[in-house]
Each structure stands twice: as structure tokens, then as C-alpha cells.
């Protein structure tokens, strides 16, 4: 029994997170609209302009869950 927290971080938090596998980026689409995503490297997000959602990338792991996505009209 070690870390039973909701957030498990095995790598140090360096803010931006690791790069996403480029081959993975080629096949990723928006889970809602199935439209291509825009990779915002600086914000470490995958943006679905159509759905108005930005999916976070945490330590190189894209979180493609609508519940975890940021609404694009939110303040950044």
C-alpha cells in the first residue's frame, strides 16, 4: 500500500509534461466529433476546435475524457 491518492505522479512534475508520441498524435481524434485535434505544445493540450474542448496531456499521457477537458471559452 503506497500511494492511494487520486492523482498519481510517477514522474516529477515539470509543468509541461513529456512530449506526446508523434505516431499517437497521427491517429488521435476528438472523442466527441471524431475531427482532427490540434496539438498545443505550449499548453500541453490537444484541442478540438469543433467541440470547443481542450484535452490535457499530463506527463505525456493524453487525457481524452470529456469530463477532464477544458472548455475553450474558459479563461486560460
Amino acid at each position, binding site marked *: 500500500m503506497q500511494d492511494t491518492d487520486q492523482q*498519481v505522479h510517477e514522474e516529477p512534475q515539470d509543468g509541461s509534461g513529456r512530449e506526446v508520441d508523434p505516431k499517437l498524435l497521427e491517429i488521435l481524434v476528438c472523442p466527441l466529433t471524431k475531427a482532427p485535434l490540434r496539438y498545443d505544445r505550449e499548453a500541453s493540450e490537444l484541442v478540438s476546435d469543433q467541440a470547443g474542448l481542450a484535452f490535457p496531456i499530463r506527463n505525456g*499521457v*493524453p487525457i481524452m475524457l470529456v469530463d477532464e477537458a477544458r472548455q475553450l471559452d474558459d479563461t486560460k
Partner: protein
Amino acid sequence: MSDPGIIFERDLLRRRRERAAATFADFDFLNREVAERLIDRLRDIRRNFPAVLDLGSHDGTLGRLLGPEFGVERVVSTDLAEGFARRAPAPALAVDEEALPFADASFDAVFSCLSLHWVNDLPGALIQARRSLRPDGLFLGAMLGGETLIELREALMAAEMAAAGGASPRVSPFAEVRDAGALLQRAGFALPVADADTVTVTYENAWGLMRDLRGMGETNVVAERHRQPTRRDVLFRAAEIYQQRHAGADGRIPATFQVLYLTGWAPAPGQPKPLAPGSAEASLATLVGRDDG
């Protein structure tokens, strides 16, 4: 939850899975066993699958067993829980099986080990899995079936009836093998096959079983449950009933896990197809070698 289509609360499942992720290695025996059985099936198929999606990967047990033997060059690990995805072989991502984020025709195979029984919209999830496959790509999935935990369900039901004069769903409704074949067909898979086997695990008592279910992240997430957790006295009574009804000579109790295996192929030209009914050119009697008709 008032939406009649929602059987499982996915939020709750996600939280359970996130909690389970950290200590899953202590509770992954069922996952490992079923992953091995899936691998055995794969050996019989004798095909190469360069790009694979591991759907509901947990910590990547199945993905780690896939290698050059099956022509696998790349496994994308996915789980509803970020904690599991993080522990699975990279590249990994958190996804909801009900809303897959993959372009059409991205994979040569989609494998899934013990996650799909928590999906509300199984037909939808299967359709999305099929679309993510290239033509003639393989879907092979294992999920828990309707006979799973039958002993525990009966014991809880009996204890609850005695305590409250009514019973509520306590253990998730699972799919039946006959539903599974029809689902594959409806999802557009060619050559769909569904079959089942069981894994029986013995425990000292029902508490041991319940602890394991928590560790696996497999405890009840049925939406239509009481607001309060099961009362302590009902649980105690259920554990007693379980023991009385099922304990073997050594005092240990069995827990049955039924595993459904779903196999289907993304349609492609040139695939074998079943003949239309009535299209046979020889009578059955001829085929079985009887000519006395």
C-alpha cells in the same frame, strides 16, 4: 441518475479504478489469468498484428504479453483511469470506451481484457472499436459474464431479503453469452464468435473475496443502488450464508468468474462469409454419409 440508459455510473467506476490502480499488482490474478487465455487464443489465429489497441488496459498486463510472436510492433494502452494508463506500457492514454478518440482504420487489432463489462453502451463501444480497425482487423475481447459471482449475489440477496423484506441490485448485471454474439453482429463484425469459460477462485471467506473485488476495482457500481452502502449486519449475514451454502470440506468458499470471449473481424472483401440459408447444394443426409433416405 435518472437516465434509463445509464446502468453504470462511469464517474464512480473511474474513481474506483483510480483507487485500485496504485495497488493493482496485489489483485491482478484474474487479469493475468484471462490475459494468458487471450494470448492462447491469439496463438491459434496465426496472424500478424503490427498496430494494436489495448482497450481498458488496466496496468498493461495484456499489452506486455504482446510481442514479436504476434508480429506486434506497437501497442497503444488505454484505460478509463489515468492511474492505470500511467502504469501501462507507453504510448498510453486515458479514454472512455464509449467515446474512443481514434481515427478510423488505425489498428490491426483491438484487444480488451476484463473492462468491457462496465460499459453502458456496449454496442456503441463495439462499433467504435470496429471502426478503429483496418479492414480484416481483429477484435478479441474478454469480459465478465452473467454467471460471475453468482454465489455472492445469491448470498447478498438472501441476507437483504431477511433484513429489509426487499432486495436491490448489489452486483452488476453482466452480459450473457448469447447476447454477446448478437452484439458483435449488430456492431458490424464479420465472423462473430462468442463463447465462455469460468475461472473459480477459492477464498477463506466472503470478506477475502470482497477485499479482492475492491482491489480489482470491480465492486458494484450499479446506478440503481441504495443511497447508503450495504448495512454492516446485512454483509455479515451474507458472509454467513455464503459460507453455509458453499464452503467445501476444507472450509473454503468458491467464487465463480465467468469470462465471455468476443471475437470478430472488421469486414473486408475476400473474407469467408456464411452461406445464405437454403443455398446448400447437397442434402444434410449426403453430407453425413447416409444414403438410406
